[in-house]
């Protein structure tokens, strides 16, 4: 079960820069490590995080092996209109996690 946490303010003034904090539970196995019995542990990482704001992509990050487990990604966007922010994490082994958050712009 993919689990994610998103923290952002629920309301903002038009034109405000708002901070969005995202956290995903994921081991981020690099693919470079070996098990205690010597086999290579296959790579298992989140490769992409996207955020769309009323259908428009406002943020995208490509994640790689050097990113720690349970990656915390913090970014900002400008509050332009009330609506929905959709977050989507995708990665190895068909990993998909999604989250939606509402933003009210006054």
């Amino acid at each position, binding site marked *: 079960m993919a*689990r994610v*946490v998103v*923290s952002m303010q629920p309301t903002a003034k038009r034109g405000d820069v708002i901070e969005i*904090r*995202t*956290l995903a*539970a994921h081991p981020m196995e690099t693919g470079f490590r070996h098990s205690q019995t010597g086999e290579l542990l296959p790579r298992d990482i989140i490769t992409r995080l996207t955020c769309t704001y009323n259908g428009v992509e406002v943020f995208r990050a490509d994640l790689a092996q050097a990113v*720690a*487990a*349970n990656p*915390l990604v913090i970014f900002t966007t400008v509050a332009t209109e009330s609506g929905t922010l959709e977050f989507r994490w995708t990665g190895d082994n068909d990993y998909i996690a999604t989250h939606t958050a509402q933003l009210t712009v006054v």
Partner: protein
Amino acid sequence: MRALLLPLAIAATSVAADIPLDKRLSGYEFMSRETRALQDDEATGPAVFALLDGEALWKPCAGCHGDAASSMNGVAARYPRFVVSKNAVLNLEQRINACRTDKLKAAAFAYESKELLALTAYVGRQSRGVPIAITLDEKTRPVLEQGRKLFFRRQGQLNLACAQCHDERWGKKLAGSTIPQAHPTGYPIYRLEWQGMGSLERRLRNCLSGVRAEPYAYGSPELVSLELYLMWRARGMPLETPAVRP
């Protein structure tokens, strides 16, 4: 007469080595600004998944205890304590497992399992900011004295006592790390070195293998007595569970 004087003399020396109450500092005070920010981040801090797991694991407990926010407020600040039904001093993990086996008729969680750490962190979270208050009575006092003895006893190949670092040399460096005062104010913790959650017993076993002593087993009377002594030593300090430590 000699028999009377001897315990007094021992008590006096151990009190002399204690850190004065107003000079006590949480491990938080020794951390970098960045690590403090991780602990202060309630919404997306590294312990948040353990708290969410713990909230889910609380469901069967709610049958008796109801809303954890009210029923568990202040509970973690009072452990380890004497539990009548077990006729023993138990730490919080053991108390949770006793409740599971005796009341829920469910299997006990293994020490350091994800489930036990999550549930303990969730219960501990309900006491954040509550001052640590250990009950001292005829049942807990002998255990506390045993813990105190262990804290001041040199052991392991390095022949070190806990007190030599944590009472006498706190604030100085051990390799690259600052030696804290060993006040267990935030267990279970998310430790960056572990990349995960861990209990006070895990931390104590770390220190024991660090001085090359044989670590006491999880749940052993030695570890519980040390936990009791350390929590009493931190009496009055606010609980930070789940804390982040480097």
